[in-house]
């Protein structure tokens, strides 16, 4: 979800789906040899192999590192000592902290005071209303979905946890949306604003959220303020981005018409600009909500509580059943929120037929009356429930819950135990994971760690230069150098090896499925709902099933990363192949090309920008999960971040975080060809 859907959907909204294909270089090996860049690439690879054999260790030289641990510990100490003294805290940060704490508490108390029935009724009514109210199928279905979601919280015995998550969500989404709209207005209305904000948004998009949790913890301490602030930082950019996109993409003729009628600047903004951007803004809200959910769940690592905490604890206790139950609740919230905002979007696109045209006014007013009656019934029921009887309990009645987690854990354990190593001939998941580790991951890691550091730098520079521009090369080299200087070369190569393996797996599987989906309508129809659900799920949730399957360790992190990045890659590939100019396809068919020839000679070359984008997205998404994999035994940089968080060790945690961001920047630049730069932004 999150970062994936943003550029992809944003692109759709901007309508820049088709892009003139760049001149493709002459194909074949001879063509490749003719390119100086490729020759350079070959030379570097040879040098790298020779260097790796010659030198026994390729790690970054000690002399070139800079010890950041000392200064960072100083900062950390200063922060701890001055939290109650420094004016920075007293007049600024403490206010934010108190305000967030108070806000979250307030919302939680409010939800609590409504009682379980009141909350369910309110959520159902609001969803029903947002989806267009009335008795239409659409709104009724949404209402039913809401009802089931909230009932599930109760039945699964996680009502209080769900409310804690929701309370944080409500506040985080509200704050993110407001900040996002304001920033979006700045970037959308002022060119200078856009020049300043655009790179910030771009960087935010490739930055794994995990990396910046630690500084926030040091400033705000463990608890809901840190969780809220990190969520807002993570979730506000899509809103800002899409608001700016909508404002800039507005129909120029309509704006001019408004001006020609004598509208002032404010009138123009209110009556034309903002309404014209409403579709993008709603899309932005949808993404903000989904990203906020993702982050609220992940922020359990820094004490946000709620469902995420349940997963976090269950994972650390190896209680798969509990984690799965909490995961199901989170997925339900995700689906519910996604569907409700999507329904609101549909409502904007195809509003209910106007009610004023004579004739059917009777039916319409009847529908309205029923609608109000339903509202009234909800409210009355909620109020009554709050006052009397078992339904008046604040929390979901204990008699109505089922304890599925214990039997579930048993069931899952017997199942995973059966397939872990008991499968004859094929082996089993654990066996596969072990083989994968020793045959693929370990050699890869050793090779990368053994390769001389200057060779890696050179290789990265040449690749970036080949794919994009010299600027991309420069950024990549600088990022890598920072990693080296921080003294994290060894660990970063470990993380990088995991990322590369995951990306390769993702791309192979994703592009294949994408091709099949693009060619067969039937397959597409089959996998689309699956992709929809997968793209709305928070990152954290992906860890649960993989741990159940392959146990903790690097394979789990990699499997989670692959599964997480797959939907985006499949989507972009299929979409790219499908949007290939039908005339070119027809020409190829009329010349008697076979399906394979069409694919190889027309579709794939023309869809190259999309494939590049898929690659880029795959890399960014995979990195985000591989890093979180530190929680389930992925080791390397991710583990450092987790360690830093748990021990509040700024020296270890922050430098690892910086290294992760650098890796992200480098990988992003390496896979971001000149062509796809414009695509990601959408506004160009």
């Amino acid at each position, binding site marked *: 979800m999150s970062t994936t859907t943003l550029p992809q959907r944003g692109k759709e909204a901007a309508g820049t789906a088709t892009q003139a294909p760049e001149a493709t270089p002459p194909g074949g090996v001879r063509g490749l040899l003719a390119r100086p860049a490729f020759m350079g690439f070959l030379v570097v690879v040879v040098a790298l192999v020779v260097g790796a054999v010659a030198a026994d260790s390729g790690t970054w030289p000690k002399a070139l590192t800079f010890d950041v641990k000392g200064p960072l510990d100083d900062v950390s100490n200063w922060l701890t000592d001055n939290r109650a003294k420094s004016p920075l805290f007293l007049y600024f940060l403490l206010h934010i902290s108190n305000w967030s704490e108070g806000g979250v508490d307030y919302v939680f108390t409010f939800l609590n005071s409504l009682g379980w029935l009141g909350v369910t009724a309110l959520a159902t009514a609001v969803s029903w209303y947002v989806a267009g109210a009335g008795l239409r199928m659409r709104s009724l279905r949404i209402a039913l979905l809401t009802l089931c979601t909230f009932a599930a919280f109760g039945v699964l015995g996680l009502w209080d946890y769900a409310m804690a998550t929701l309370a944080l969500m409500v506040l985080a989404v509200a704050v993110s949306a407001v900040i996002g709209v304001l920033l979006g207005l700045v970037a959308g209305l002022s060119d200078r604003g856009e020049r300043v904000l655009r790179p910030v948004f771009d960087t935010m998009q490739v930055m794994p959220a995990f990396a910046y949790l630690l500084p926030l913890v040091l400033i705000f301490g463990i608890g809901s303020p840190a969780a809220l602030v990190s969520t807002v930082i993570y979730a506000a950019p899509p809103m800002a981005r899409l608001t700016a996109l909508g404002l800039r993409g507005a*129909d120029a*003729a309509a704006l001019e*018409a408004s001006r020609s*009628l004598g509208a002032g600047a404010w009138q123009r903004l209110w*009556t034309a600009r903002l309404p014209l951007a*409403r579709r993008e803004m709603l899309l932005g809200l949808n993404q903000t909500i989904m990203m906020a959910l993702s982050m609220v769940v992940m922020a359990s690592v820094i004490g946000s509580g709620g469902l995420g905490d349940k997963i976090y604890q269950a994972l650390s206790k190896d209680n798969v059943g509990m984690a799965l139950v909490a995961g199901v609740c989170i997925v339900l919230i995700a689906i519910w929120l996604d569907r409700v905002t999507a329904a609101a979007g549909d409502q904007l696109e195809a509003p209910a037929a106007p009610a004023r045209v004579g004739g059917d006014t009777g039916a319409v007013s009847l529908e309205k009356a029923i609608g109000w009656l339903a509202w009234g019934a909800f409210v009355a029921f909620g109020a009554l429930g709050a006052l009397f009887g078992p339904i008046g309990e604040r929390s979901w009645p204990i008699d109505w819950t089922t304890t599925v987690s214990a039997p579930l854990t048993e069931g899952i354990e017997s199942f995973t135990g059966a397939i872990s190593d008991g499968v004859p001939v094929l082996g089993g998941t654990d066996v596969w994971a072990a083989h994968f580790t020793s045959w693929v991951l370990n050699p890869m890691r050793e090779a990368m760690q053994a390769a001389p550091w200057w060779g890696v730098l050179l290789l990265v520079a040449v690749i970036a230069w080949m794919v994009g521009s010299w600027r991309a090369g420069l950024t990549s080299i600088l990022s890598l150098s920072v990693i080296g200087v921080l003294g994290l070369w060894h660990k970063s190569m470990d993380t990088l090896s995991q990322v590369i393996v995951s990306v390769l797996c993702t791309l192979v599987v994703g592009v294949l499925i994408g091709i099949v989906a693009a060619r067969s309508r039937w397959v597409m129809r089959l996998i689309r709902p699956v992709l929809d659900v997968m793209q709305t799920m928070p990152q954290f949730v992906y860890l649960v099933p993989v741990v159940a399957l392959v146990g903790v360790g690097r394979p789990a992190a990699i499997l989670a990363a692959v599964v997480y990045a797959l939907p985006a890659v499949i989507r972009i590939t299929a979409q790219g192949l499908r949007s290939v100019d039908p005339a070119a396809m027809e020409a190829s068919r009329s010349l008697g090309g076979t399906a394979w020839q069409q694919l190889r000679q027309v579709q794939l070359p023309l869809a190259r920008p999309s494939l590049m984008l898929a690659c880029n997205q795959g890399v960014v998404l995979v990195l985000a999960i591989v890093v979180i994999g530190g929680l389930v035994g992925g080791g390397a940089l991710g583990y450092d971040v987790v360690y830093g968080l748990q021990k509040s060790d700024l020296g270890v945690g922050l430098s690892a975080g910086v290294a992760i961001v650098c890796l992200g920047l480098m990988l992003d630049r390496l896979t971001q060809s000149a062509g796809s730069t414009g695509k990601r932004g959408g506004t160009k």
Partner: protein
Amino acid sequence: MSETAEATATADNKNADEHGAQTGPVFSVRNLWKVFGPKADRVPGDPGVTGLSQAELREKTGCTAAVRDVSFDVHKGEVFVVMGLSGSGKSTLVRCLTRLIEPTAGTLEFNGEDVISMGKDALRRLRRHRASMVFQNFGLLPHRSVLDNVAYGLEIQGVAKAERRERAAEMVAKVGLEGLGDRRPGQLSGGQQQRVGLARALAVDPEVLLFDEPFSALDPLIRRDMQEEVIRLHREEGRTMVFITHDLSEALRLGDRIALMRDGEVVQLGTPEEIVANPADDYVRDFVRDVPREQVISVRRAMRKAEATEQETGAALAPDTLVADAIETVARSGESCRVVENGRTIGVVDDARLLSVVAGLDTAQDDGDGEPKEVAAV
């Protein structure tokens, strides 16, 4: 805007209106320039560059002169057409009239009021009440119903909801969209959308309607419908209109007078007949070559002096009868016809004269004649 202020503004409008009707043109444009580019304001005053062609100007100064030294008057009640190919600066010119694009140099008066020196509020009043525009791409707000789109101008003025809806409904009916008031623009055809645009412009009851290539995006048949709609509106209301188009036949159909633009300059300004019969240069001649001349030129231009015997014989025609109609009369009667003005025979048309109009042979002769040249030099 407060209600009283608005009332005074409308009263002012009325005064200015009556005033303008008596004394002068609605728009009076003199030496108007619009230059795009770095240090654009230096171009119009610099005698060294004002004479250069577009390409030379761009090379020398980096600027593009979209409108160069344009002067004309728009009279009350007329349809003034500005026509030219794309890039000739006509759309820029019409936007300069309400300063949607700020002119670089020159003077511009609206009913005798200096528009260039108008402050923000005065300019806003001008746009809100006195001149409204119809756009090529409609510029409708997709999230509003047709009725609310039409009422948009009134909403900007601050008219109360009930009143503006009522007036909007009137306008919707006026442009022939009864019953579609609750639709969204997206649910309408192109022609219907432009009717909404027209109704929106009419709703504020402006003195002048500005049309910026309003029908270019429409199918030929619909375009014809819409042109007839405009002609009908003009006949019923007599509103002053400035109409931008790149379509010559549209210009000839609608225009009382036509200003033909090329590279930002007005190359010829005159009635359709003058332009067709008496092109100012080769560019214009080339432009009007395929025009069916008999549909545009009147017998006044085709006639010759009557000989003594012809003074009293033959059917009588009014001087502004089109040649096409005269051909019919001459063919029916089989003899030459008299052109009669105020009971006096001022000339005669026979088959030879009419055929020479159709064949395009009359221009050379006109050049020798004193009278038409004088008209063409307007």
